[in-house]
């Protein structure tokens, strides 16, 4: 029997209703290290499809609401219960540490989108094609660097105003033409709504970006075991 992994939790398992992906059985595989894996019983002939990714997200949310857990990257599959147990046992120490760090916590995602496209440079009409090309390249590079600096400034201001410790924040800047900042904050689940409202208030103070705040989500970004 194949297993599609969803989340790792400490034993004993919480009481959860039986439905996994596509209504298939949700299984608990307990490892020797006091950890266990929540997964869906699967068959190798079944292909994972687009809706399964979002269903995995809803399952992880359900598991995290029932007990502290570590979300597993979507698409992780084990050939058998024994293979799942062996994988957990092999990394038990790191998994316990990660669980202690993020268990009972949620992440809130903040995306800052630029309101305007980057400013285009002005090249003198009389310039030759070579110079126009070089001027355009220089203007493009300059605009990109200006935006990156602005995005980093926004992150610094946001962290300062939120008054949060840096290990509880993850961020990337300028991940695409539209995105200025992609950021995640780790927060105790019981304080997540309060924290989210605070994040919205701070981000709305930035005039050149549109803020999109999502979550609380399971702590995907902070679950890494390094």
């Amino acid at each position, binding site marked *: 029997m194949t297993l599609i992994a969803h989340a790792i939790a400490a034993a004993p398992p919480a009481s959860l209703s039986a439905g996994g992906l596509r209504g298939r059985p949700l299984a608990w595989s307990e490892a020797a290290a006091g950890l266990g894996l929540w997964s869906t019983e699967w068959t190798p002939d079944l292909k994972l499809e687009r809706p399964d990714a979002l269903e995995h997200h809803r399952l992880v949310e359900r598991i995290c609401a029932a007990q502290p857990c570590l979300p597993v990257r979507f698409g992780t599959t084990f050939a058998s219960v024994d293979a799942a147990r062996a*994988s957990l046992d092999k990394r038990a120490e790191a998994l316990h540490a990660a669980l202690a760090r993020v268990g009972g916590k949620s992440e809130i995602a903040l995306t800052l989108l630029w309101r305007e496209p980057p400013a285009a440079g002005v090249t003198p009409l009389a310039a030759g094609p070579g110079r126009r090309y070089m001027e355009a390249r220089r203007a493009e590079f300059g605009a990109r660097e200006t935006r990156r600096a602005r995005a980093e400034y926004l992150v610094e201001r946001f962290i300062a105003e939120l008054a949060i410790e840096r290990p509880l924040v993850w961020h990337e800047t300028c991940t695409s033409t539209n*995105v200025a900042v992609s950021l995640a904050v780790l927060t105790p689940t019981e304080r997540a709504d309060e924290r989210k409202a605070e994040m919205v208030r701070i981000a709305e103070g930035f005039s050149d970006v549109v803020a999109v705040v999502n979550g609380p989500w399971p702590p995907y970004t902070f679950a890494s075991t390094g």
Partner: protein
Amino acid sequence: MKELTAEDASLLELVDRLLNKGVVLAGEATISVAGIDLIYLGLNVVLTAVETLEKSEKRRAS
């Protein structure tokens, strides 16, 4: 520049987390359902997000 709506950004952020974040239980114990199908799935999900972008752009244009 393609305009990214709040809805598009939310979907992309979530998909990024599902496919790129979370605990990685790699190693010999981990297999894929059907080898390349998992890679295909990744592209498919990203394509879904791209399709959403294209659709919202068409809606704005019409």
